């Protein structure tokens, strides 16, 4: 039932099952967008009615961010129409001011409030500061107006407070109210919330959701982007689910269930041509034992890795999956528990010590934490091993170059040459350099955080090959990924994290991606500790 509209390549418009009598607050028709050869949006259509809270869901790279960027006028679409009320605009060139004039309002993931400034200043910053004859700001008027707005939106707070002193939900509310402040008629407006709860602790989420419900009941149309399925179940009147640039299902309120959402997000077209690591072949003692470590976001995490085993970690943003990797790499200390590496209890004061013990870490944000920009492929690939070329007071440059060229060939790194700037390489080839930098010498434990993020499909396979090579040489691999299909293709088993705990373990990942997705989203014990 839910999936009947899936895979509509023609770009037809899946409609809501029961379009209400009222005219749509916003109607998007046949929206298309390509980035180079990648089609991010293959023609999607949807509408939101006044007073409706519509959830927009989908995995990474499904196209929902692109959709929102086009609506906000941040990027131009390739084709499509956007109708707001009676006005229709061409999706190819939406100006941000135009979107605003039409009554479209956006609040993004990290509520962009200025923490050191008062609520009144934050609100005025989204609109204007009333000025006196000499151009000086009339502060009394700023405060008065801000208080009126806060009252109108039933935000119970003192607008002279610094925003940082508000509870997190209220800070997010200030961002929402700031976006809505100049709208006199909510039923003519559309609020787009882009993962508004991602940065909020669990106990704050319901406060925010209640407010959103309240505004919707006054006629505001809300397009609500989220990863948290419980929120969709709680507040959405309808759900639009995207995958690979298409809308895969459009669900009415009574059709929204965990399973129908997950099915829409994951789909069922999984290519299972790759051979996964055979778990039975991994004999012997565990190489890595993590025994009940707690601290930071982690609480009581225990697991073991065998030599050469590739284990996946699945979990939502803020579930503690990245924290676990960072903790094992010595970046954040743990307060309780023990880590045993190759028979020895270890504790690291920093990455340097972790590296010395044979641990490597490939961070999630390649540009920010891994790539040495303006330096060559050669320098990037030998950054960890530089010291080994330093013999008798001299860097063995020729030897280094030869090794680099060998590695480039072995791992299929495509570059104009070893002296080319790293920035000249494609994302996938840069990522290969980041991984090969470590696996070129024997390791005990390789920690990978989203190793295929921003990498095209072809390079993905080569990255998996590189990871498999490392594992075949006896390195244990712990790999975090939001792409569950990917985990099921590479890992011998998958640990599921939620709220800083390991909540389950999928021993036979080949069975079902849906099963894994359900495990990640399932509400259960461990959730109360979520303080993302």
């Amino acid at each position, binding site marked *: 039932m839910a999936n009947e509209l899936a895979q509509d390549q023609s770009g037809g418009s899946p409609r809501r099952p029961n379009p209400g009598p009222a005219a749509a607050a916003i109607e998007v028709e046949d929206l298309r967008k390509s980035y180079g050869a990648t089609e991010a949006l293959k023609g999607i259509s949807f509408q939101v009615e006044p007073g409706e809270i519509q959830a927009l869901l989908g995995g990474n790279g499904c196209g929902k961010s692109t959709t929102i960027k086009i609506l906000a006028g941040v990027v131009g679409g390739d084709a499509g129409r956007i109708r707001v009320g009676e006005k229709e605009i061409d999706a190819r060139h939406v100006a941000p001011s135009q979107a605003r004039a039409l009554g479209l309002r956006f609040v993004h993931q990290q509520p962009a409030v200025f923490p050191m400034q008062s609520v009144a200043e934050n609100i005025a910053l989204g609109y204007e500061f009333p000025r006196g004859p000499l151009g000086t700001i009339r502060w009394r008027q700023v405060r008065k107006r801000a208080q009126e707005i806060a009252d109108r939106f039933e935000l119970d707070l003192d607008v002279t407070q610094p925003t940082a002193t508000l509870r997190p939900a209220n800070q997010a509310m200030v961002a929402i109210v700031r976006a809505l402040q100049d709208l006199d008629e909510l039923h003519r407006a559309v609020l787009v919330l882009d993962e508004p709860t991602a940065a909020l602790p669990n106990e704050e989420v319901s406060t925010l959701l209640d407010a959103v419900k309240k505004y919707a009941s006054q006629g505001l149309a809300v397009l609500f982007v989220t990863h948290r399925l419980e929120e969709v179940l709680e507040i959405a009147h309808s759900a639009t689910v995207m995958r690979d640039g298409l809308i895969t299902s459009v669900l009415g309120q009574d059709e929204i269930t965990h399973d129908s959402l997950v099915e829409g997000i994951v789909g069922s077209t999984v290519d299972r041509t790759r051979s996964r690591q055979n778990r039975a072949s991994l004999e012997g003692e565990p190489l890595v034992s993590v025994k009940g470590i707690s601290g930071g976001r982690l609480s009581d995490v225990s697991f073991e890795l065998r030599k050469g085993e590739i284990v996946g970690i699945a979990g939502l943003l803020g579930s503690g999956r990245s924290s676990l990797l960072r903790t094992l790499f010595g970046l954040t200390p743990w307060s309780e528990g023990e880590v045993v590496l190759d028979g020895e209890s270890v504790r690291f004061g920093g990455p340097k010590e972790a590296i010395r013990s044979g641990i490597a870490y490939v961070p999630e944000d390649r540009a920010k934490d*891994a790539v040495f920009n303006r330096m060559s492929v050669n320098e990037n690939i030998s950054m960890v091993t530089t010291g080994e070329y330093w013999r008798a007071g001299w860097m063995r440059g020729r030897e280094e170059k030869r090794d680099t060229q060998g590695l480039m060939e072995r791992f299929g790194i495509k570059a104009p040459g070893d002296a080319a700037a790293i920035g000249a390489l494609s994302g996938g080839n840069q990522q290969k350099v980041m991984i090969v930098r470590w696996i070129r010498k024997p390791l005990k434990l390789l920690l990978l955080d989203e190793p295929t993020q921003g990498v095209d499909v072809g390079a993905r396979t080569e990255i998996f090959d590189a990871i498999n090579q490392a594992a075949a040489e006896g390195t244990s691999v712990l790999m975090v990924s939001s792409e569950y299909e990917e985990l099921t293709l590479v890992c011998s088993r998958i640990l599921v994290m939620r709220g800083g705990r390991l909540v389950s373990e999928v021993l036979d990942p080949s069975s079902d991606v849906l099963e894994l997705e359900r495990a990640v989203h399932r509400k259960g014990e461990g959730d109360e500790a979520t303080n993302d």
Partner: protein
Amino acid sequence: MRHRLVEIGEAYALVGLIGVMALFFSIYGPTADLFPTTSNLKVLVAQQAVIAVVAMAALVPLIAGEWELSVGANAGLSSIFVASALSGGMPVPLAIGVGLGIGLAVGVFNALIVTTLRVEAVIPTLGTATILTGIVTAKTGGLAIVSDIPTSVTDFGSGTWAGIPRTAVTMVAVALLVYYLLAYTPLGRYLYALGSNRSAATLVGINLRWTLFSSFVIAGVLAGFAGALQVARAGGGNPGVGESFTLPALAAAFLSAASIKPGRYNVGGTLVAIFFLAVLNNGLNLAGAPNYVSDLVNGSALIVGIGLSAVLGRRRATA
């Protein structure tokens, strides 16, 4: 990928420009008789030796992403104390040791501030520079120290080896040393890594604090040595000299990214930039341009230098 010839052209554009300027000043009426003479060229080269060593001092922390503004003042302080020690009868090697020691102490001071407080160097080293200038004035009362400098020292400063000024030979030796440090030691590689991405540097196990610390200590010692060399060049210690070093030295360090290895601060580029500025200033001076013109030239060079290094660096990031 751009054509190889274009790359070479870019790397040596400034060198070519020096040649063009030299040629111009050799045939341009007002300077044709003065510029291409051996004595003028000797002075030109010898004069740049000290500034070049100061520029090397600024270069090392600059590569790691830190702007060291006290290298000029440090060299000035060192020159005063070396001159004073020499005129007090201290043996030459010991006096040079005094200069190096002062440079080292200032370098450690800067290094401690930057690594323990974890601040960017630009403002604290401006503070250091001001403090050092104050110490110089306190020590000299604003008067130059020129008496009783041993002739062995002044001979070194004005003499030549095979027609090449000895100070220039010294400069080349220092440049080779710094080149070795940057290109043939892991420390050099780590300095570039710090200048590129500190977060990534930490995550590949580079010791951030130690690397930064070293860069300031090296800068300090080089500046101290530049001070001793200045005494030999000038035959004494002049309290105003430190300030006059700062700007051209920094300008040359920034401009170094515009030649030899475009997009990257480097030793060869620093020397090219030094002589680019020297030929330009020297020619203008001989042509009868007023003294303030050199300020205009050096100031512009600093702006052009930082602009070019930013633009070329960005391009190197993607091409």
